[in-house]
């Protein structure tokens, strides 16, 4: 959104005008709101360094004097939780890669090639956009189950990819449409094949679209809960959110809030890091619907 920002001179002008009571009011309100939005997240990070038994006791200032890495050590020595973190990583990275590849091909095909049925293909993708996965959860379960793709990370990646595709195809199709036709034609004249053109000639131009598609797919898969809950069975296959649910619902006083809080922080960190690093592409993706067109 910084692209849409006001031009520099006007910004400087406003900057001067802003040094007023109005500006300080803005600052105070914003900082208060920032605390409201961020403090719960920061608190959880701090809590994950508390000894596990304190997490179930009344919070007091003194609780934060004994920081320990114990929870994290326990999480990473507990074979299972580590497995679950890795599962989540495999699924999120796998989905991001597959979505990006498939969406790029389709976006390219829809934007730059003319063929019979392209309208129908586009309509099908459009239709998929309007069907929430929750609505086809049961038939999808039967289908995956019959295909031996339940309790399988591959199955989960295929499904996550599919539900990320409509958005990805739109983004990539727009990206390709913005590339001047001449570029394709000159590549063609040089004798470059379809894939060569894509990989060598256009790569720098489509990177923003790729980044947008990839970050959305990654965050979706990293956080997804209901499908993972439905399609996965055994402990060793669970993704992190479902594993956290297991920890949270275990019986007979067995909940270890230390594990849970450090697991929560492990679930948070990639989202925040990825968002901060690729914020521009994320916001662009978000805006592609809202401002363009």
């Amino acid at each position, binding site marked *: 959104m910084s692209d849409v920002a006001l031009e520099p001179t006007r910004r400087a002008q406003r900057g001067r005008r802003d040094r007023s009571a109005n500006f300080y009011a803005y600052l105070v309100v914003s900082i208060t709101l920032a605390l409201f939005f961020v403090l719960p997240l920061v608190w959880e990070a701090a809590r994950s360094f508390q000894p596990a038994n304190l997490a179930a006791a009344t919070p007091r200032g003194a609780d934060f004097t004994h920081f320990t890495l114990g929870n994290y050590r326990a999480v990473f020595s507990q074979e299972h939780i580590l497995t679950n973190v890795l599962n989540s990583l495999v699924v999120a990275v796998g989905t991001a890669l597959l979505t990006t590849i498939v969406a790029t091909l389709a976006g390219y095909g829809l934007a730059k090639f003319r063929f019979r049925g392209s309208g129908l293909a586009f309509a099908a993708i459009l239709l998929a956009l309007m069907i929430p996965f929750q609505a086809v959860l049961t038939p999808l379960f039967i289908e995956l189950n019959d295909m031996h793709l339940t309790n399988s990370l591959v199955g989960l990646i295929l499904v996550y990819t599919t539900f990320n595709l409509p958005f990805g195809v739109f983004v990539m199709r727009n990206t390709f449409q913005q590339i001047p036709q001449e570029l394709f034609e000159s590549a063609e004249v040089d004798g470059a094949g379809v894939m*060569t053109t894509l990989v060598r000639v256009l790569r720098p131009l489509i990177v923003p679209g790729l980044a947008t598609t990839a970050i959305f797919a990654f965050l979706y898969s990293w956080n997804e809960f209901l499908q993972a809950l439905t399609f996965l069975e055994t402990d060793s296959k669970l993704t992190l959110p479902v594993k956290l649910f297991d920890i949270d619902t275990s019986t007979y006083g067995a909940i270890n809030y230390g594990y849970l809080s450090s697991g929560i922080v492990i679930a948070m960190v990639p989202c925040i890091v990825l968002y901060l690093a690729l914020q521009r592409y994320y916001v662009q993706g978000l805006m592609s619907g809202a401002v363009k067109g």
Partner: protein
Amino acid sequence: MRRRGNARIALIVLPIAAVVALSFTATGALSKPTATSAFGVNATGTVQFWTRAATSGLGVALVKQFNATHPHLKVVLSETSPNQDTTKLATAIRAHSVPDLVGLNDIDVPQFSRLNALMDITPYVNALPYKKYLSPGHLALAQYNGKYYGIPYLGDLSVLWYNKSLFTKAGLDPNKPPATFADILADAKKIQALGNGISGFAMAGDCQGCLGFVMEPDLFAVNDQLIRGPIGHQTIHIVGNQPLEQLLQLYQSLYSQNLLSPGSRTETGPTWGNDFEQGKVGILPGAYGFYPLMVKAGTIKDIGIAPLPGPTGGYSTFDGGDDFVIPAGAKNPSGAWEFVLWMMQTAQQNKYPALGYTPVRTDVLTPAYKAKNPYNAVALKALAHGSAPVTTIYDAAFNEPNSPWFQMFSQAVYNNDIAGALKTGQAGFEKVLTQAGD
């Protein structure tokens, strides 16, 4: 060039197509019973063993020991998510990719035996020399149409815990645990009167399954069941059920007279019993499984154990816990049975109590056992009087969030409408029964 381009696309398309195509090839040959002599002896390979999270402690501890002593056979343990275990097993059965052995909550066995989803192990069970000593409640749940589809695995029994030192302080006899409903109410009142943050009674008041587990034995004690008759011809007995009405009245009184510990109303299970373990509660109907936690908390010396009483006497327990079942189509049933036989040996059964479980062979209850496990001996003794409803609707009727059992309990106890609650319960149970087609 163009050709090469297409070839690259094919490289991407083909793997996806292959995955999809491959997945459609169904597998799942049914295992046929083998000769009893070879079955379960010197098996090789691996055994995929699923255990539910609530009772995984025993499997985790003993599988390690089995693998250490059996180099030719490896048991691979997987935990299924809490509250998801039957769904996950059903999923695996649907996909014909079942584990070799499952520690299935015993009350869930009938719904799977009825669907022919489990291996018939009747000849192997009948061949066991100690068959007559197996927990009767567990075994009854494993039996369907005269055949055995499972064998007892572990006992997770409900008992009455009480705090002897608080009993003494309140002027009660620490060696006389409550034996009737009236005792429970009277004792809880005296202990509550101690003040100082001490409560008379504790329960998991927002945990459907927990409440069923500790309250039903109060009815079993007088041979009362809410669901009666053989599967396929069952009826509901709630309206007009005197002991049930008394039981709801007891809990209603405990609630309305403020005799419950502060966390009782809102407890959903995860921290059930913690307040009792810390010595702040007089009476707790709970699981024998709390035992290791009390040992850990260091309060066990103050704690007494008793069986759960009936309205005016008698006692019982919920034959909770798991049956071993071998799903139909398991790849290594012989290996699974070899592990089962090992678990059934006295040496292994004797390891159960310290881990919070009760053995499933009543013949291990010797004087030596009693001396070594005084707390578990009480539970094991109650096992002979134990019961569990044999029905395919247990989960739907009792354990689920919107179960008619919990609706009835809430209406009676928290809304003080026992007559209305009984009607709600009767209608709700009947609806579940109709839906299940029984």
